[in-house]
């Protein structure tokens, strides 16, 4: 391989009591790559990230960053990495500058260097004006920008981002995405990002690992992942039917050629179908039921479709299932999978 791997993950497993959060995963991340872990909430993405960033001890398996083992050489690993967590690592009662000075001082960066770097970073995310304001007064977008530059104080070779755009408005999300891209291109920082947002993964990542129930079920570039669908005889069809009835939806679902049928609103259907005569079959079915087709489009596959195709369920579905499982009767106290951070 031409480019060396900076992260090597080997049969990594994490169990919380009897619940397996991360199930024997193995993958490499190349230097300078933006690597995405895509999957629903509770799929084990964050736990993987916590293990890689020395915050959680693996039950089994190993991971190395650079040449250091995340358990045996955790102190060395910490010098190489930065982490942007889903929970913002930032003290509301301290000012922007105090926050950055505090975290910077933990890395033993000389004072002048640190001060210069803090000014540069604040400038970079346009927060210089609020340098001496308490972070608690900031908007969510501003705080997330603080949270990101906090992770960059030690100029990490590897940056871990756990759901960095969660809870942000579209504009702030775009800003954060652009910033990550820029960082990757200009500094050569390797970025590992977890997300359940298909857009994030699609726009940012060089390679994407699709994670479900603690396992990596597909790993490739976005383009190649989509080829799983568009390469074969699988098609994605969007249908608008003026008089769509539950009965009609049921009969389309009953068709052999239909892999996945999702009703998007009262008139439109999103279908993943396969086979040469799929089009004919569907149109015939609708006609037989007196359905009125107002529009029909053959769509480019998205990562969502890929996920749907591989797992057979929607990203949101599995998140819901997980919540139901955890909140189910009798499972709230002790019985169910307990996750303690």
């Amino acid at each position, binding site marked *: 391989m031409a480019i060396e791997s900076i992260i090597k993950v080997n049969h990594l497993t994490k169990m919380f009591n009897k619940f397996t959060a991360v199930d024997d995963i193995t993958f490499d991340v190349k230097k300078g790559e933006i690597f995405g872990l895509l999957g629903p909430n509770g799929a084990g993405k964050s736990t993987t990230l916590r293990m890689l960033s020395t915050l959680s001890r693996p039950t089994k398996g190993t991971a190395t960053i650079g040449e250091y083992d995340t358990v045996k050489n955790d102190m060395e690993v910490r010098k190489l990495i930065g982490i942007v967590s889903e929970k913002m690592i930032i003290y509301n009662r301290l000012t922007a500058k105090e926050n950055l000075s*505090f975290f910077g001082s933990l890395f033993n960066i000389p004072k002048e260097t640190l001060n210069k770097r803090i000014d540069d970073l604040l400038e970079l995310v346009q927060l210089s004006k609020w340098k001496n304001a308490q972070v608690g007064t900031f908007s969510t977008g501003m705080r997330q920008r603080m949270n990101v530059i906090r992770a960059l104080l030690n100029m990490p070779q590897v940056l871990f981002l756990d759901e960095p755009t969660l809870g942000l408005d579209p504009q702030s999300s775009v800003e954060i995405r652009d910033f990550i891209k820029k960082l990757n291109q200009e500094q050569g920082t390797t970025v590992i990002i977890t997300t359940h947002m298909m857009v994030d993964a699609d726009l940012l990542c060089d390679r994407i690992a699709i994670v479900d129930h603690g396992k990596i079920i597909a790993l490739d570039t976005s383009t190649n992942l989509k080829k799983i669908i568009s390469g074969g005889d699988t098609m994605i069809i969007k249908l608008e039917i003026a008089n769509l009835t539950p009965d009609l939806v049921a009969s389309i679902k009953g068709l052999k050629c239909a892999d996945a049928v999702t009703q998007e609103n009262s008139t439109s259907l999103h279908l993943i179908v396969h086979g040469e005569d799929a089009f004919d079959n569907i149109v015939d079915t609708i006609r037989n039921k007196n359905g009125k087709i107002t529009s029909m489009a053959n769509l480019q596959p998205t990562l969502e479709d890929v996920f749907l195709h591989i797992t057979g369920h929607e990203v949101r579905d599995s998140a819901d299932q997980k919540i139901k499982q955890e909140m189910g009767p009798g499972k709230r106290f002790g019985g169910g999978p307990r996750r303690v951070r």
Partner: protein
Amino acid sequence: MTAKTILQHSYRIAKKDLTELFRNRLGLVLLIVMPLFMMVMVGFIYPSNGTITDLKVGVVNEDSGFNGVFAPSQGFLTGLQGINNQTHMLIMTDVKSTADLKDLVQRGQLSGGIVIPDNFSRSVISRQQGTVIIVSDESNPQISATIQGALRGVFDAMGTALAQQNLNTTNIAVIKPFNVQAQGVISGHPSYFDFIAPGIMAMTVMMSVMTGLPVAISQEKEIGTMDGMMVAPVNRLSILLGKTMAQTGRGLIQGVIILGLAIGIFGVAIQGSILLVFALLLLGVFSFVGLGIVITSFTKDQETAQMLMMTLMFPMMFLSGVFFPIQQMPWYMQDISKLLPLTYASDALRKVMVLGAGIPQIANELIILIAFGIVMIAIALPVFRRMMTR
């Protein structure tokens, strides 16, 4: 990682914690108000001279006299009045009968009463002992005991006076040949508050640590900022020491306030060195911190941590001899109290503040507190490390 970096990191963490504390205005106010309440409460509930005044008692005079002479009972009442005018211990009301008196005590309108039976004058005049009955409210043992004690004192004084009168002699016989005077180690009259103030100081500082730690550790864990420290190349000991230092600083602030209040408002005299008092308060904090960290590390969130702290704090408060002397307790309770650091902290403080002890006299307590603190931190470190990287 050198010792210097470890200390530098802990200093920064402590500084950060204290900055956060000072920015939290309400928290800061409470930090000052809490010991104030504590001291004011204890200081005024337990009156500093240890006496009770203005107790409401009823007086029932059923004396039927002796051949129309009521002198003994009249004399008794005048005497009682005379003594009470000096001490203001009682507020006396006349009650018709013993039954009425009991009724009034049951209603809670009187705390007790004095009954002069109908044969009082007859007995005294016929050179027999006159009996006076004290009725007391047994539902309140403390008041009951005080009334009995107070009235006994009155009777004693009156009895002596009467005996002298009856003997009608001049300095030939000493009616009460023995008189006992107590003398303490120090001059002055230490009050209950003097006894309790050192304990309250130690306890408030302990409570400050025990309530401060869940915030300092569990909350950081909960909101996620702890990860920021854990993911930096910082020795875990630095985090613990930093938290310890911050809590000690916080305890020191409260210690100064309490000490100021004790001296300024409640007139507590500090017989020993004031520096030693401070040193003991700090040592007290140090000995609790390790324990607090172990507890907070085990709990999942701040709420549980605080509840657990409260559960532990109450027995500690009462078993450590802060309010009641340990010697009063049954032996098994005394054994338990010997396991609590607060016992030694308040004991040592009491020795220094009330008895004017120096370091040699409290060496045992000092050693125990230091040892307890070190052992607890030694236990806390691996527990903390383990819990934070689950």
